[in-house]
């Protein structure tokens, strides 16, 4: 099980096309692409505040893996927290989360201590197939949190990640790094500046 205290790993799961990558990209880069969605990077990093110091929020986008549960398993065992995304325009996409949830349950044992957020994405769409209350009901059943988002309109995206961090009772985390900049952060930023992507 993960234990590196300096890292907080969030794994994003969901069927294809529900907007996992869009959510992550919106959160990390603040952008949204309507037309061509690239098969994005696997891992993103963001500096956050944790227990009054700075740590790294690491987001793993599992795009492409939803058909391969045995490989998905590898991602689950690494994760501290999970975002399960479906699209409100597809009942099927909510259905496809069920085995994923079961897998998280099987690998992590007791899920109550593990932050999980069920996310209905594409809340800007009008052709809704999954009602908000259906999502809520599912979340109740899974004893996890629930939220509807839109990566397109940037609705609830930052909130989603902040809420997820709040769910972790073992540490006190926040997306905002207030006031003073610790040496570590500036180093991270310096690195970031240098890494103009290979």
């Amino acid at each position, binding site marked *: 099980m993960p*234990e*590196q205290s300096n*890292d907080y790993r969030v794994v994003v799961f969901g*069927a*294809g*096309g*529900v907007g996992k990558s869009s959510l992550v990209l919106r959160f990390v880069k603040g952008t949204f692409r*309507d*037309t*061509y*969605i*690239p*098969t994005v990077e*696997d*891992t993103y*990093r963001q500096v956050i505040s944790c227990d009054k110091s700075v740590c*790294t929020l*690491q987001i*793993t986008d*599992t*795009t*492409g*893996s*939803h*058909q*391969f*549960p*045995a*490989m998905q*398993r*590898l*991602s689950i*065992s*690494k994760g501290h927290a999970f975002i399960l995304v479906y699209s409100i325009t*597809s009942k*099927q*996409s909510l259905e*496809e989360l*069920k*085995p994923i949830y*079961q*897998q998280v*349950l*099987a690998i992590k044992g007791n899920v109550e201590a593990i932050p999980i957020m069920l996310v209905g994405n594409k809340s800007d769409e009008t052709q809704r197939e999954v009602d908000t209350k259906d999502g809520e009901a599912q979340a109740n059943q899974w004893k996890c949190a629930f939220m509807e988002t839109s990566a397109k309109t940037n609705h609830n995206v930052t909130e989603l990640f902040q809420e997820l961090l709040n769910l972790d009772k073992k540490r006190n985390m926040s997306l905002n790094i207030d006031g003073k900049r610790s040496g570590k952060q500036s180093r*991270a930023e310096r*690195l*970031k500046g*240098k*890494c103009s*992507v*290979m």
Partner: protein
Amino acid sequence: MAWEELHAEKAEEVCVCWERPFFFVLFRGNMVRFVGLSSWRSWDLLHGDSESPGSPLAEMKPTATYCQGQARRRKNMTEFLGETNIPTPDSLGQIGGSLPGIGGGPDSWKNRAASRFSGFFSSNTGAGPFGKEADRLEQLQSKLHSYTLFGLPKVPRQLSFHHDSWEEEEEETDLALEDSWQKLLDNPEALTRRQFHQQEAIWELLQTEATYIKKLRVITDLFLCGLLNLQESGLLTEVEPAKLFSNIQEIVRLHTALWNQVMLPVLEKARRGRTLLDPTDLYHGFRTFGSRFQPYILYCMEEEGLMENMRTLLRDNELFRTYVTWAETHKQCNRLKLPDMLAKPHQRLTKYPLLLKSVAAVEGFINSVESRMRQRQERQKLATISARIDSYEAVEGSSEEVEKEYNCFDLMAPMRGISSEETRQLHLEGALRMKEGKDSRMDVYCVLFTDLLLITKPVKRVEKVKIIRQPLLIHNVVCKELKDPGSFILIYLNEFKSAVAAYTFQANSATQGRSWVDAICNVQNQHQRLCTEEVLRQQNSPKTCTPGEEDELEEEESSNSTTSSPVLRHKDQQNSSQSDGSTETLSVMDIDEPGQHQRPSPNMNLKRTGKIDSDVAPLSERGEVQQPQPTSPHRVHSGLYPEHDREAGPEGEEMDPQCRSLSMDSAYGTLSPESLLRELQPQPAKARRERETVRPRTRSRKRQK
């Protein structure tokens, strides 16, 4: 056409490369034009040397390659680490000079390494024996410091000689790409929207591949190489590289080969002719996906173990932690931790289907990795259960003759009459009260598996169970519910269908009794189906495959891949069929395979195991037969369409939103060679309009995106 010639050449190239790896270098040396070196210099430690390709003899002499390669690498490593301090030619000469013989034992090697170190890095606090534990950390830090200043000093022999890698891919791989594919064209604005997306998709494949190779090389060239270097100096010798990195070198090698043999040629062709990137060339390259990507099976299987080992080391071994932390600070790591980087291969693997929609070989192969991993998980589960069985005591008053040889039961043994790919699974277990004949009831613990039922009794002191009745083959069991709530009877039949035993069971509650009866019934049905499948498979496999292919075919079948058979065939046929005109190749796959469509075996047409709840209902995980995915009939149909019909062809049907997984539909712009191909050749507007009306579903869904 010019590209046809190139194509033929490429087929030859592949052929040559398979047979004699090092000729390939020379051949390619003439073919591939180098375009500026990447700013990320490849101080590639895996592969030998690109500076001496002139004579085949040089390639064959490890010593020569080794020394020259080292000089280059040393220089590049320094650049890599961002230092301007380049070693003088003298010091390079020293390295070369100190390595005349390869044959020395490990000890002499180590000593030489140590003494060389002390000569080089006089700032070292002494390169003597690292006896004291307290000194080791200091030693390590000073070594790391010197690496930072001067670069990793040499190629560890483990990398260069254990794998004969000096024979292959000797050249420095050129991973440099333009900022955008649009730079390849004179006026990209003139492209249609679809062409634009197509080029974007191909570009993404190339770009992410190059990035991925660079990331992999950070693992091998920094982490692995650094570790091996330290080990040469007697540090961190307790760490086993294979348990941290598995076969990552093979993965790097396969991707380098893929790049050089498949992707770079496409890129070069476009660069030379200022033309569009041609997806058909890529398509051919990816048809060999299954054989190229074999190393992934081992890697994915071992990944969990690697991570576990890594965590243990990071927690318990301060030296190792120091080393990894040092390596992770290099900017090439992009702030990622080593475990993150080691997870890349499986992440990358699962993305190919998105990048290469409808290159069937790809999905077939990944399914085979997936199914191998799943099988292993199932076997691990079974082994855990098997370990709980303490003894076999089904025969009363057994004599010594019985005792020794026959009082045993192997739960791990393959199931009879069922494909060996299947693993025995636990379906239900629990406490019941059993009554046999006139005896009084006794407490038993029953365990129901795919093909059998065990009646056991707990052995308290060891928390295990002993088997107290003969294992019941599930297909010889007759199960009937009795009037008393929660009770049922099992009648066990022998080969003559005569009863040989009867057991009455009483569950704690009516519901529990019910669930036992249901479970036994379900397992019986499923068992029956598995047996039928196996019989069919055995009937069919001799007809449809040649002896050489059989093993692989079985493997693919187990993953229920729709496409396994064409894939396998074309692996063998690639050399002959690839040089056909590119426009035909897409459907060649189907047309060549009349046998495939006649095959009645049901499991050949099924896939998408991932949709099925794997943990809650292990039964259904393998039960695709019950839930045939609608994809398959379409796929099979596609073979019936003659090549020239593909305008109205299968693509639209195949992509029926109900059938295809959402991700396939939504990954707009991913590579579907069949459709993309059309965009390459400008067509009359009329024809295009017709196509659109023929395949409205495809188009409209894409627009939604």
